[in-house]
């Protein structure tokens, strides 16, 4: 899977999980604001990313991810 495929997969999974339009997800956008994450739904982000990429994001790392680009980079390095 190349990087573009990975990003597409991540975006689609997040759009499905959090019921937003995939167009709302841009690299510089805030993950927390775009997905309206709170401490509970952050758990769903971690679970969904694990299901899609096989990468488990520890909670301590998840809270450091600000933008979608941060998320793509984090997962691309570990996938």
């Amino acid at each position: 899977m190349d990087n573009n495929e990975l990003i597409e997969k991540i975006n689609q999974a997040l759009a499905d999980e959090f019921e937003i339009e995939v167009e709302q997800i841009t690299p510089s956008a805030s993950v927390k604001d775009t997905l309206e994450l709170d401490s509970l739904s952050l758990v769903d982000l971690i679970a969904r990313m694990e299901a899609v990429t096989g990468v488990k994001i520890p909670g301590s790392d998840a809270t450091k991810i600000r933008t979608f680009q941060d998320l793509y980079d984090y997962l691309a390095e570990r996938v």
Partner: protein
Amino acid sequence: MDKANRVVITGMGIWSCLGYSLDEVRESLYEGRSGIIFDPARKEMGFRSALTGYVKQPQLKGVLPRSMRVYMPEQAQYAYCATKDALDDAGITEEYLASHEVGLLYGNDSSALPVIKAIDTIREKNDTTLCGSGAIFQSMNSTVTMNLDCIFKLKGINLTISGACASGSHAIGLGALLIQNGLQEMVVCGGAQEVNPYAVGSFDGISAFSTREDEPTKASRPFDRDRDGLVPSGGAATVILESYESAVRRGAKIYGEVLGYGFSGNGDHISSPNVDGPRRSLEMAIKRAGISVDEIGYINAHATSTHVGDTNEAKAIYAVIGDRKIEVTSTKSQTGHEMWMAGASEVIYSMLMMKGGFIAPNLNFCNPDEDSAKLLIPSERVMKKFDIFLSNSFGFGGTNSSLVIKNM
């Protein structure tokens, strides 16, 4: 019952195998339709019996936000639909709920599927985070009341009643007691039951279910000599209980009055009911209702289509009513056993029949046994006006609830 505060029913809503609105359910009762099907998936899972009530899944996407739906197992979704309809039926608005302390007592006694999903995840992944945020809230026995309370912003008592197959009936009885005693003016009461196979797998395992799989609609045959077990079913049913004064003040439509609630424990066997416990529950409900047995126009029996259960209930009813000709039926002949929901749904079924002037047929009652022969059990629809019914619900461990409700 103490008449200090009269308790009336001002709203009803239901999501059941007989329909998803009061009108649909009324018609199903009138026509004597069965809601029971053969589910091939259960056979593949190793079930003795693949029979079940069929209940469609509500589509709540676009109705409730993800942030609410993620915490709702199937029975909470059914309960949401039933409760939304009941509140609308009662004319209760968001503004009313925001400015009054409306209570919530709902019967629920399991949430198997979310528990199994979470355990599967933990075993497979060795990681609890991957269960997701909804798992804990979906898994708890109080999942229905915690969800309904947050969705409808209810500010009164917020409590799940777990009384096995009498849960829904106890919820209504206890709600009535709170209103009678002036502790609540309005209580949303009901019962919910998950329908997924996992919820009843171990129940199937103790040979409690009918295996008449070649004739699904004939499998549930309460009081019939040839019954061979119950058929599991589910959904949700909600009634709005309110003080008479509140209902009059609001100008609300009043369906009927909860006259009496009786309860008892058997103090006996965990699965086999006896006669004495149910008899005491019936007698208590009638006594507290302040009526004579002769005033009862219809008895909605608990009868689930098991041998010992129906036999002992028939004995208990006969011990109370004797040779009086009061129609006794079990609507489980149409629905199967709606378990945690049944006590609430059967109040709605009985109310719809009372309002409609008919008694739905006790399906598949072809031959009586020694005990059911002593009761008047119609196998065909009876057109009859009646103004008081008694509804029985009994559960594992010997928990009994009886309600006496009067037409208004």
